[in-house]
């Protein structure tokens, strides 16, 4: 479905990407792992249209994404759960969710979609009319995922959904990601908890210093020597 080829991004001071290629099939769950500063967020933001790539190709279902302005990426069925959640803090939870369904196509079914988010994250239901800023970190993360789901995406981009959450909350979050994936949505997951990210994924990519250094089935990447080396350095034994 999504095909990225030879992507180069140099966006201000954000970690840069060189010649990155990646594909995501329909309904696939792909994890993107790599040490901090490798460029994971840059890649996700480029796919979401937040950063403009310098060169390369990006297509979704054969449709060219490179020429689109930022606000038209979501028409192609891409929705972003950004790093650090970035909710609209002064707006209510319900309003945040409605922004997710801003596009006309998604707007028609938005009441049902809000119901769907509440079913996935029951804790959100009681908070619908609270300001987003008043929620706990875990609840905010639920709203951020909910907001993206409101857009009825075919490809969900999740950037560090477990960052700063308690182990219990991380567990719940991964459960929800499984559910979303099981319902047929393709997911690109960026995650610092490498073990869990590789456990849940079909396939994985390892990004280091702005390049893809390993890829394949999630279990292969987990056992790949480059993974430990990238994170922990060369262990001379």
């Amino acid at each position, binding site marked *: 479905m999504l095909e990225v080829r030879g992507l180069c991004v140099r966006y201000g001071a954000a970690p840069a990407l060189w010649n990155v290629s990646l594909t995501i099939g329909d309904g696939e769950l792909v994890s993107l792992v790599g040490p901090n500063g490798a460029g994971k967020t840059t890649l996700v933001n480029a796919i979401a249209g937040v950063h403009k790539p310098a060169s390369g190709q990006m297509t979704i279902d054969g449709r060219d994404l490179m020429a689109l302005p930022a606000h038209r990426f979501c028409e192609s069925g891409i929705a972003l759960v950004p790093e650090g959640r970035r909710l609209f803090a002064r707006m209510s939870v319900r309003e945040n969710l409605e922004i997710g369904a801003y596009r006309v196509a998604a707007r028609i079914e938005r009441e049902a979609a809000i119901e769907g988010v509440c079913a996935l994250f029951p804790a959100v239901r009681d908070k619908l009319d609270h300001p987003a800023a008043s929620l706990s970190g875990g609840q905010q993360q639920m709203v951020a995922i909910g907001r993206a789901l409101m857009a009825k995406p075919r490809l969900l981009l999740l950037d560090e959904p477990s960052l700063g959450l308690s182990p219990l909350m*991380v567990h719940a979050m991964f459960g929800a990601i499984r559910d979303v994936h099981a319902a047929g949505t393709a997911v690109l997951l960026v995650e610092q908890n*490498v073990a*869990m990210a590789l456990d849940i994924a079909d396939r994985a990519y390892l990004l280091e*210093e702005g390049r893809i250094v390993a890829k394949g089935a999630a279990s292969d990447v987990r056992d790949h020597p480059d993974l430990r080396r990238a994170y922990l350095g060369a262990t001379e034994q």
Partner: protein
Amino acid sequence: MLHWVVLATSWNILSGYSGYFSFGHGAFYGAGVYTAAVLAGTFGIPFLWTLPAAALVAALLGVALGAVVFRVRRVRGELFALLTLAVTFVLATIVQNTPIDGGPGIYLSAVPVPALAPTAAGTFYLMALALAVVTLVLARAIATSRLGLALFAIHDDEDAAEVMGVPTYACKLAAFGVSCALAGLAGAIQALFVSYVTAGSTFNITVPLTVVLMSVLGGTRHFAGPALGALLITVLLYASTAADHAVAGKAITGVILVAAVLFMPNGILGRIRRKSPRDTRDTTPTPAATPEADSAIHSVRANRGAPLLVLRGLRKSFRGVHALDGVDIDVRDGEILGVLGPNGSGKSTLINVVSGHYAPDAGSVRFAGVELAGISAHRIARAGIARTYQVPRPFAHLALRDNVALTAMFGAARRDRVQANAEAQRWLAFTGLSARSAMLPGALNLHQTKFLELARALAAKPRLLLLDEVLSGLTPAEIDDAVALIARIRERGTTIVLVEHVMRVVTALSDRVVVLDQGRVLAEGFVSEVMARDDVAEAYLGVAHA
């Protein structure tokens, strides 16, 4: 016309150089007008004696205002502009309603014009000319002094300037004082010249707006810019008044201002200077061989290995999140200490607290035996700590050599401007940027900008260098370059704290590493030992809960 040259140039000393646009220049000008008017008109003091008084009153007013306002970090940019405008109106109301004026205004027609020239008109011309010359000379002197460079740096990035060792508060106050004193003098002369002053005609919005217009038109980053702008605008206004097209003149002034802001945000002189030669080659810097060893500092030190920086119980929270939750770290003299940890573990906060960007909530920061916790950032810089930023923060409108010279002047070494320039060239050579020393940072690529950050930190002659992810975003080849450079810095005896994610770099450079996790020290020791520990691997790679 000379009157406007003085007002615009004096305004520029604070507002143009440092970027604190004041819309209250009318207030200080007015303070001068009324000081002279009251002393000479009401009390009959000879006019020339009122001049120093006018300058003093205006300067005191400015410094008093600045002493309060510059303490509030939030009041910058447009908020400062509004605040100074409001001060003008408050002052006007007070003058209007107290015996200073009393409402009807003050006549100075009875005040004798000092006989400096055969005619009264000649005297005025002479006084205005003298003041204009003094103002321009002062403006030029400041622009080329340490203070001037500090003000330009404040304009571009005040927080970074403070961290580089610039006493920003004192610099702003000094500039404000000089600026106001000159405006006060201009006001005093104008009071005698028009010989009748009212609050309404003195404290109005026209003075600040005209002054801003002239300076922006001429160029605020050059000492002569405002004078040039004043010249152009007054000629234009006189020409249109003489030709009976005052209205057209006003409209044309408006058009010029709009055009100037949109097309020449740096003013006429700024635009001319922009045309200066620019290196278009985009080669990566090739660091030159180590410059001749400087004997004084940084040779092998006797106390190598003794703790240089000692952190105990360091805490810092942001809205209830404990970024640092009781951190104890020793940095030994002469070593490279790698600081590792997953995202959000508190590495950047650690750098920010040590460099004084944030004050710690609790705990102590002892550097070479001196407690630094809670003191201002520029004093920490002078104590001998320099840093780089993860996201480079060069002073965008300063040439590379000035970027580097600034820290040579205000950092631990405290050089004068001439020495600092030589020093800057040396460090630019060290980082391979010599060929670009006259360029602006905007012309550099990320790799070069990171090296500029390094050169800037090194020129301060720090004993301790904090490197915050200097390598992020670089290509592998560029990283190799940077690693060689950092190794050479260490050879010179500088102690380094290295926050870094690229593990091969940490392995290659660090003597020891500290791993942070959730604001605490998780592990400490040699790289290979620490990274082989299970709890460290877990912090990095996570555990599968499933």
